């Protein structure tokens, strides 16, 4: 039986909650374990409730799971928030029996360890900032995480600040361990870390870092940057990466100019992208239309957050799908991809840059606030296996006046000129234009050009096929999902099928143009179809209804947190019943 352990550190933002999770994650990975993290914190810099949750196993982890086995409560608020989740079998480590700001109640079946982390930090170490290190010392002593892997992580993080800082943190760890050894000498804990094995050949990335790495692996040489939560760190990581791969990260005055610079850069022949979130997507809509009309390849990553307007900047939502597929005025085709996990963030970014070149089109890549900071260990990439699509540059032309940038072709894609290729000059315009790029509004041109722009995508469903199906034909229920909900559904499906339930799932990575044939075939192969997603309207369900003959049941959560596997599992069980709901289920 696999070991599946989730440890949740919760407390006030700014007191080391997030870094505790990061250290545990890194130490566990160094000890050869599989890990996945989930973090959540307020939009403010200091204060407010923050949590960092690390799921650790000796087998591949599919999602962030349902809850926790071990709670480390840094303060009373963390305890109050998580109190209902302290079910029998869980363990709590809390800031006590003295020096903390709360006193826990009795919880039946819950094993409780009091560790005066605030007190030890303040009075023995004379520095409150060491509180989280004391807590981590207690955690490794209690649950058997190898000390050397934690210490090496701490060393690597702090050695830049000097050996005395490293030693200070080691001392804090030791005091936490010593407290457990002295006060709980005969303890028997219900959970423990998996056994340490040889470290795997992996790299650790969080979602936004993965988009940045995918961008440079995909050949991007320009990034237009404007800060916006939760997308900012894509640019932060790219500043560093582009120092090793060549390219420019340029901080603009707003999101409009971020995309404007990307269009200008791509026009000259360089692969270019930007990343933003909801409000930025709203601002970029007009320029997305310019890229569509003038057929300039661009990639826009949308790290979704709760909207509308400022909404919930640090919280999970899958509600920008309409804006990304249908936004910008006019008949405006584009490609929309959605990442389910950190690996997708790397490889779909490469795909996005490739597809942008292949179809001379904007490609929208959807991620979200939770995935942006979700950390996973993924296999070390192999550049020899990465195929890049380079620009379809036009050959030098003897006479620029006969070069047809927007030549009508069967595929809809035409050779592109670029500064420096003799005779290929043309004026990219947002006006309707003829083959030679000159403005034209006559019926014949308008029809031919509109159809050209859409024809490009006619065969895309067969040409680009990252879509996966689980289950078998004839199953009682089929789940279609996108983005991060896919990883949650994978875990639910494995549980449901292990219990003997006939439930299938379809995992499309390309949401637009709609993979119509595959969605219709999937729907035909199961008795009914449901689309769980983290938005109120059921945006993907609506798009499916609009572009296929399938009418899915909607299952929606919009509370600002990802769905969990248990909810998908319960949804499926409810829908398998005779008197199941037929239209829409919302959960809170």
């Amino acid at each position, binding site marked *: 039986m696999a070991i599946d352990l989730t440890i949740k550190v919760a407390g006030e933002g700014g007191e080391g909650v997030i870094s505790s999770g990061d250290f545990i994650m890194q130490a566990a990975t160094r000890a050869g374990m599989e890990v996945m993290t989930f973090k959540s914190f307020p939009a403010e810099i200091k204060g407010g409730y923050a949590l960092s949750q690390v799921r650790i196993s000796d087998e591949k982890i599919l999602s962030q799971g349902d809850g926790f086995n071990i709670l480390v409560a840094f303060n009373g608020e963390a305890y109050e928030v998580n109190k209902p989740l302290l079910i029998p079998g869980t363990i709590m480590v809390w800031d006590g029996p003295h020096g903390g700001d709360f006193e826990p109640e009795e919880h039946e079946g819950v094993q409780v360890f009091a560790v005066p982390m605030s007190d030890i930090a303040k009075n023995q170490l004379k520095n409150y900032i060491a509180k989280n290190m004391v807590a981590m010392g207690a955690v490794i002593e209690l649950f058997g995480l190898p000390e050397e892997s934690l210490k090496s992580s701490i060393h690597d993080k702090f050695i830049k600040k000097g050996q005395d800082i490293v030693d200070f943190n080691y001392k804090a760890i030791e005091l936490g361990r010593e407290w457990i050894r002295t006060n709980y000498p005969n303890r028997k804990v219900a959970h423990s870390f998996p056994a340490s094995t040889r470290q795997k050949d992996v790299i650790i990335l969080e979602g936004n870092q993965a988009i940045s790495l995918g961008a440079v692996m995909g050949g991007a040489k320009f990034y*237009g940057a404007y800060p916006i939560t939760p997308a900012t760190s894509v640019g932060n990581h790219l500043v560093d990466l582009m120092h090793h791969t060549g390219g420019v990260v340029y901080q603009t005055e707003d999101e409009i100019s971020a995309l404007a610079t990307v269009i200008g850069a791509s026009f000259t022949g360089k692969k270019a992208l930007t990343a933003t979130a909801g409000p930025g997507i709203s601002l970029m809509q007009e320029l997305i239309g310019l890229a569509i009309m003038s057929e300039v390849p661009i990639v826009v990553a949308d790290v979704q957050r709760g909207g509308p307007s400022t909404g919930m900047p640090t919280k999970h939502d899958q509600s920008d799908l309409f804006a990304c597929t249908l936004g910008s005025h006019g008949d405006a085709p584009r490609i929309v991809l959605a990442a389910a996990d950190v690996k997708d963030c790397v490889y779909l970014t490469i795909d996005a840059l490739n597809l942008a070149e292949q179809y001379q089109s904007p490609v929208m890549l959807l991620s979200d606030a939770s995935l942006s900071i979700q950390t996973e260990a993924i296999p070390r990439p192999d550049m020899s296996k990465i195929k890049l699509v380079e620009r379809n540059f036009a050959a030098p032309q003897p006479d620029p006046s006969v070069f047809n940038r927007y030549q009508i072709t069967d595929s809809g894609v035409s050779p592109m000129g670029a500064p*420096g290729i003799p005779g290929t000059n043309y004026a990219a315009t947002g006006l309707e234009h003829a083959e030679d790029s000159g403005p034209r509004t006559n019926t014949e041109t308008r029809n031919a050009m509109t159809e050209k722009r859409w024809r490009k995508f006619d065969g895309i469903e067969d040409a680009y096929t990252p879509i996966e199906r689980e289950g078998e034909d004839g199953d009682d229920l089929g789940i279609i999902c996108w983005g991060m909900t896919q990883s949650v559904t994978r875990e639910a499906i494995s549980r449901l099928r292990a219990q003997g339930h006939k439930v299938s799932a379809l995992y499309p990575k390309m949401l637009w143009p709609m993979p119509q044939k595959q969605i219709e075939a999937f729907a035909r192969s199961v008795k009914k179809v449901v689309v769980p997603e983290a938005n109120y309207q059921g945006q993907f369900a609506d798009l499916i209804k609009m572009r296929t003959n399938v009418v899915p049941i909607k299952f929606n959560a919009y509370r600002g947190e990802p769905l969990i596997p248990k909810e998908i599992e319960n949804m499926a069980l409810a829908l398998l019943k005779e008197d199941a709901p037929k239209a829409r289920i919302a959960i809170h």
Partner: protein
Amino acid sequence: MALPATINIHVTEPLKAKDYRSDITPTWCPGCGDFGVVGALAKAYADQKYDPSAVTTVSGIGCSSRLPLWMNSFGIHSCHGRAVPVAIGAHLARPEMPVVVTIGDGDCFAIGGGHIMHAARRNMNMTVIVMDNGTFALTKNQTSPLSRTGLPGTLASDLGNLDEPMNPIEMMITYGATYVAQTYSANAKHMGKVINEALAHQGFSYVNILSPCPTYNKVDTFAYFRPRIHDINETGEHTDLGNRSTAMLKSAELYNHHHSDDAPVPVGVYYKVQKPVFFEKVKQVQKYYNVTDTPDWNAIFDRFKP
């Protein structure tokens, strides 16, 4: 197919002005000041010996922003107000290639007013040419930030424009432009001199061209300008071009033709100074980090090892 290994930015045999014009007939009204500008720009491209397949002319939306379509060069006829950041992207991606922005006063200072200052303060190595007709002409006569007080406009009352015009020269010097000049679209010689200087200038150059709209602006006409135009560099009114304080003062004093009917209309160079351009600083950063185009992928992946 990749970009050619050797890129020609300049032609070896000089071309004629007409070689930089496309075969599309401009849609401007007869008598539009912008005809003079497109002619002067084509002539200046010829003087600079630009290869038509090397230079990019970028515009926004409006009558004057159609200009790149009438040119034989690369062109981006982008969105209203966004020419400057589009041009910055083109410039930073291929910094060796010349980039010129040609826009109207509404595009530059109304909808695009948030962009121009950043190109100027960062001393982007590019030229921005504003065709200043004091009106939104393509939408049939609304006032712009450069319109004189009282000028009629369809969104104004019978009393006309309520605002005082902003002073683009003073503004651009404040923003940090390193070459700032005004010229007049009926004076091909002066326009040619100023545009050539701006194109040759290393850094952000701004050229305001008084370019009358015969259809909608019945005040700032050729007939109005003709007797009032004078070259402030020639008259000696302003010669200390490298002094920012003097340039600020002169631009405040001399850019006054909107304020009274008798006021003379100045053209000339207000400010010209050499400062490091933005991309030189980018190159310093790249040197500092030893930036390479041939990545060591193993070393990059090692950075993310647990």
